[in-house]
């Protein structure tokens, strides 16, 4: 109980900070029904499967078709503790049996878009796929549910999650917006990969069409389980990979909003051009860009090479200047920087690559490279650097990293690829030396969020095993006090970022959402994945 209260207090403080950080929240009036929301999306859809994917390119256009068991309160998405039932009934349940059992009552009368009634069997089938996927079935958030022992559906309206040990990370993990609830019938009939190319959910909108590379269209689902919602007649998610096109779309009112975020310059341009017709919402962002060396490729299996990569990067200078042109800003470690579990300045500067003495860091990098024998390599250390064809912030940070590495004699050739090919390189081909990667999480849940750095995590592409890191994480997971968790997370951070330098953390993001002022009901969250069901959005036209 002590643990839960501490957790609650910590999370509450973070929620307060984030709420204050939001500079403008859309003023709610009486919602009006009707209209179609046009919004722009800056990335393509690798597949429709939420359990597999990790990109906003999928979540923005596809999330409105699905529901979750529980979700972040759409009226208060900045809070990391405010969870409400979506497909469950009443309040989010409290754990029983010493925090190891959660019993959810499932709503009755919920239907999938194909007319099939939704029951607890669908919830169980969904979470079995996410938590215990069979060999060959990708599940990006499997590691979030390490504590889960079993999922059962004792009757049509009840689902029970049993945990191996009590953990505060379980409920936030359940609220992750990628946990789309699928129909058991679809999974049984068509297989566990069917949802990669097909859509059948219980969300506020039903699927109309997807013109690849152009748009995804949804229409209001009349039998939606939140009565009176959605307010919109439909939505159109317009694919616009180029940032300039997305900005022009909002400026010309061909789209009302972009849910991911614009750099400061575009915010200023839009406000200057449109005045009161634009509303700006801003927030810190639970998202960080990483540089992941592929440890199956020599010489990146050598920790000295990986340490040199991170030591060469001027994070403090990057923060100062890149924040003017890109959606990155904050220097941080493995935990969301505003969170009490995050490293403070004294702790950060002890990590390799975070020192304020850049010259010393780069001298150390050069020495490590020499010790690792780079001088003897023909042509020096040449890096095949995989990057994603998304302007903000991937290409900006990618170009910056190449310059940083060059300063210690590491030459990188950038391979910028559209999202599907980028993911194929990360997940299947593995033919890269270092890749841009990201840890963008939805609900602020540091204990779950830092699983990204585990070699065993489904969304880790470094191709390494680190038993010591896994052991530290197990201790974090089972730790009952905040101070102990904090101390263990520092050990974890030092191991992952300094001693082994498995992954290089670059800069944390900062979210700026300028949108047409007639878009109401949508509030910014510290994640571009959250609050995308669109059931509470309405148009004040």
């Amino acid at each position, binding site marked *: 109980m002590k643990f839960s209260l501490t957790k609650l207090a910590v999370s509450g403080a973070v929620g307060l900070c984030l709420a204050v950080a939001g500079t403008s929240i859309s003023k709610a009036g009486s919602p009006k029904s009707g209209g179609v929301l046009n919004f722009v999306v800056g990335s393509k859809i690798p597949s429709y499967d939420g359990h597999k994917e990790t990109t906003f390119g999928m979540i923005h256009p596809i999330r409105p078709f699905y529901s979750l068991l529980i979700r972040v309160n759409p009226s208060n998405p900045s809070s990391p503790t405010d969870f409400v039932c979506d497909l469950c009934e009443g309040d989010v349940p409290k754990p029983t049996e010493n925090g190891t059992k959660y019993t959810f009552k499932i709503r009755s009368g919920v239907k999938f878009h194909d007319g099939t009634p939704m029951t607890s069997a669908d919830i169980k089938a969904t979470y079995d796929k996410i938590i215990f996927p069979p060999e060959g079935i990708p599940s990006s958030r499997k590691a979030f549910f390490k504590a889960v022992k079993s999922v059962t559906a004792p009757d049509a309206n009840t689902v029970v999650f049993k945990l191996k040990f009590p953990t505060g990370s379980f409920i936030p993990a359940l609220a992750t917006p990628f946990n789309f609830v699928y129909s058991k019938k679809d999974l049984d009939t068509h297989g566990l990969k069917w949802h990669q190319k097909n859509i059948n959910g219980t969300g506020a909108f039903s699927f109309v069409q997807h013109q690849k590379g152009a748009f995804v269209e949804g229409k209001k689902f009349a039998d939606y389980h939140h009565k009176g919602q959605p307010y919109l007649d439909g939505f159109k998610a317009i694919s616009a990979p*180029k*940032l*300039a096109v997305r900005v022009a779309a909002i400026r010309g009112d061909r789209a009302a909003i972009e849910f991911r975020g614009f*750099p400061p*310059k*575009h915010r*200023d*341009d839009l406000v200057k051009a449109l005045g009161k017709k634009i509303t700006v919402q801003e927030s810190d962002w639970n998202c960080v860009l990483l540089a992941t060396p592929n440890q199956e490729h020599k010489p990146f299996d050598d920790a000295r090479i990986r340490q040199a990569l991170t030591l060469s990067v001027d994070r403090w*200078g*990057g923060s*100062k*200047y*890149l924040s*003017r*042109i890109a959606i990155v800003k904050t220097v941080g470690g493995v935990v969301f920087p505003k969170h009490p579990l995050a490293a403070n300045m004294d702790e950060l500067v002890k990590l390799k690559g975070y020192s304020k003495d850049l010259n010393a860091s780069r001298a150390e990098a050069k020495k490590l490279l020499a010790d690792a024998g780079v001088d003897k390599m023909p042509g020096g250390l040449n890096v095949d650097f995989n990057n994603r*064809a998304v*302007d903000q912030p991937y*290409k*900006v940070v*990618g*170009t*910056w990293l*190449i*310059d940083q590495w*060059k300063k210690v004699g590491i030459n990188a*050739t*950038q*391979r*910028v*690829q559209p999202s599907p090919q980028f993911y194929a390189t990360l997940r299947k081909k593995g033919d890269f030396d270092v890749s841009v990667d990201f840890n963008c999480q939805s609900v602020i849940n540091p204990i779950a969020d830092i699983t990204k750095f585990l070699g065993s995590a489904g969304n880790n592409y470094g191709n390494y095993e680190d038993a010591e890191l896994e052991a530290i994480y197990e201790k974090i997971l089972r730790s009952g006090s905040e101070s102990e968790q904090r101390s263990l997370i520092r050990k974890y951070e030092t191991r992952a970022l300094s001693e082994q330098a498995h992954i290089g953390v670059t800069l944390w993001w900062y979210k700026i959402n300028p949108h047409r002022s007639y878009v109401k009901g949508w509030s910014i969250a510290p994640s571009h994945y959250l609050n995308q069901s669109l059931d509470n959005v309405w148009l004040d036209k």
Partner: protein
Amino acid sequence: MTKAVKTQLDSDFEELSAKKSWYAIFFELVRKQPLAAAGGFIVVVMILMAAFADLISVYDPEANALEYMLVPPDEMFFLGTDQFGRDVLTRIIYGARTALTVGFTAAIVGSTAGLVIGVASAYFGGVIDLVVQRIVDVVMAFPLIVLALAVVATLGPGTQNVIIAIMIPFIPQCARVVRSNALAIREIPYVDAARALGFSNTRIILRHMIPNVMAPYLIMLTSFLGQAILLEASLSYLGMGVQEPTPAWGLMLQGGAEECAESAPWVAIWPGLAITLAVFGFNLFGDGVRDTLDPKLRSR
């Protein structure tokens, strides 16, 4: 052995060189083809920029200098800096190297391959000609940029792949034009005489036919140069060509240039102007070459 058909340019040159000094010849050609001379001047400036980029520019085209990001044109940075603090003028100068490397390689290789295929197709005729020309029809059915995009999407981005992507659409275009000229040459008696003397097909094609279709080949080659530079810039602008931090004009127009179009227009204006000038220069020069080499246009 036959001799290549003497062109108007050859005649003009011989006539002039018989009487005048080299600079008089130069000015005479400039007077006769002022637009081509202007184009030639731009081309020469580009070539010099590309060749001596290291000497002309004092800045590193790839190194970031974030403290100088988006500085407007001044005495330190004549054309301003981009979002990474890199000197725009330096990147334009080095960008000429990328443009010319891609442009010349794609145009020369593409038109030369087209020359050989076109002449061979005309010389052999029959089924070979039929099959080759149908393949040419298929490839030419695709718009230039679409075909280049398809090729680069298959091969992936990067300078080498961009050259291949641009080169492929040029081959059938050149082959078709060259073939039509080669068909006429095939009927000239000296080709029959060469056959009667027992010369090999390769020798007849290389020694007797190709030299006589050099005029259309050169016209195509010069017209391809401008197109190749424009295509390279287009592919790079679309993110499918040369990648950062390599300086390339099309690449300079995307990303930060688009984002700063209002607040820092110099980031986009100068590379755009460089592309325009280069294509304009090559087109003018190409037109001049065509006017000189094409007997139908010569009398106009």
